[in-house]
């Protein structure tokens, strides 16, 4: 992870980050005012129980994942090579001071599986179904692990980086120019006055 200037001085959230990291048994990092605590997959459910019962992080904001991949089918590739993995994240918040922590763990890209959080935070139900269909993560013990958005017959995990975006396959974008040049004149190098964003 890259370092940010906010890490050098003592960040106002440092005390909160250390407290969470110690209680759940992970390592804390603060990036751009966002506290992230990295966990081992074995601690996943227990860390959430601790966060809920001891740290008063009762509000389940969201659960999602990042597919860290070196080969991408849609979008830009990463500038540096990364260790390929699925990073699973949850965001938990208190309902008093607005402190939020992102708990994160790494799962293998092939057949990722982890115990479900539905027993800890009931709201994890839909989020885990979404992560199941979008990333192919198997949440063990989930009461109803079926597709959420996509039709039952849908094959593939769309938010995996290996999943192509069909519209971009059919017609790559932005091509050479937005508007095709007239046949007799090549594209002018002068900036257009019509569209300042172009």
């Amino acid at each position, binding site marked *: 992870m890259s370092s940010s200037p906010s890490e050098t001085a003592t960040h106002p959230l440092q005390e909160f980050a250390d407290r969470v990291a110690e209680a759940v048994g992970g390592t804390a990092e603060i990036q751009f005012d966002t506290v992230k605590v990295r966990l081992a997959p074995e601690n996943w459910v227990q860390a959430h129980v601790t966060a809920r019962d001891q740290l008063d992080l009762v509000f389940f*904001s969201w659960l999602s994942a990042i597919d860290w991949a070196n080969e991408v089918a849609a979008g830009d590739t990463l500038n540096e090579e990364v260790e390929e993995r699925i990073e699973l994240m949850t965001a938990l918040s208190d309902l008093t001071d607005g402190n939020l922590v992102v708990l994160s763990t790494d799962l293998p890209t092939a057949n990722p599986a982890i115990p479900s959080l539905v027993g800890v*935070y009931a709201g994890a139900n839909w989020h885990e179904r979404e992560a199941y269909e979008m990333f192919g993560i198997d949440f063990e013990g989930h009461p109803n692990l079926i597709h959420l958005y996509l039709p039952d017959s849908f094959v593939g995990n769309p938010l995996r980086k290996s999943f192509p975006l069909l519209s971009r396959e059919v017609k790559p974008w932005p091509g050479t120019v937005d508007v095709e040049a007239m046949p007799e004149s090549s594209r002018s190098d002068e900036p257009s006055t019509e569209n300042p964003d172009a």
Partner: protein
Amino acid sequence: MTIDANTIRHLSEASVSVELQTEDMTLNIGPQHPSTHGVLRLVARVDGERCFDVAPVIGYMHRGYEKLSEVRTYPQITTIVNRIDWVSGYANEVPFIVAAEKLMELEVPERAQYIRLILTEMARISSHLVFNASYPLELGAATPLFFALRERERVLDLLESVTGGRFHPNFNRIGGVKPAYGSGSNTRKQPQDLPAGFFAETRDAMDKVLEAVDQLEDLVAGNEIILARTRGVGILPPEVAAAYGVSGPNLRASGVAFDLRKTQGYLPYDRFDFDVITAENGDCWDRWYVRLAEIRESVKIVQQAVDSIPSGDLQAKVPKVIKVPKGETYVRAENPKGEMGYYLVSDGGGGPYRLKIRSASFSNISILPWILEGILVPDIIAVMGSLDFVLGDVDR
């Protein structure tokens, strides 16, 4: 006519001896229903007038914005996020833009921040007015619709006069707000500010909105049918709401005084005086009341902001081609429907590597199987309407 007691006994004995066939019925509600503000389907097991095991079926409006964001540039994404919760399109842009600015470590000019704040509160007023129009209508009271939509039109006209759009303003730029350029020889180089007369019209409109809120309160709060259908119906305890991630007015109606405007600092809300509205019971009535009273607070914020807006630039200095440095951040904001946030992962390129969109309505309606368990069938509409969700905000 006299009643023969023997006959009655005979009948009742007969009815007991007959085996009654009590079979549960599976009821499909939707995918089209006027009370859903989008397309939602509920599958419920109905036993008499009560429903059990309600399973919402969503995804009819899934547009895959998280995937689409990965193949777009940052300035293009504001166009997409406008369309998540289209009832308050402007408010969706702000946390995304703030997240990108945070990674770029940009200092946004004060005036631009004030304009963002004024427009966000206008979006909130307009969203809450839509709720105050549609909710009584769903319960059978048509009149409040006209009062609420008339005022909403006033607010949307103001939004349109600044941004050019009523629903999808696409007005935020990384580093500030969009400067308007005229077509004349002098105005072409001078970015225009807010339209002439905007402040006077805003003050006038806010006074009228306040009047209409009082009228709405008279109309709805004095209506015994609405009281009977909402008081004590669909009670949501705060601990259940928190575990499901229910946020915004729905959470505050359950008695939790939590408002991201007070804690997060994504816009300069700390300079204004306003109250966090809460209610005690967490029933449908309270959820209606909190949204009505929040209009008054938003009006207060807009009035103070209009009186104290500083002069200055509309945009920070940003390169023409926007590249966001490597980093990750989560920025969340108090949107009209609840917590809206973006987890932005950038790799230093022109578009995000990953953008997780946390929308309020998704978590707010994940409570439906819990809150509709054992409820009367006619109350389904009362409870669902009171949660104030937009399916675009659910499906993304």
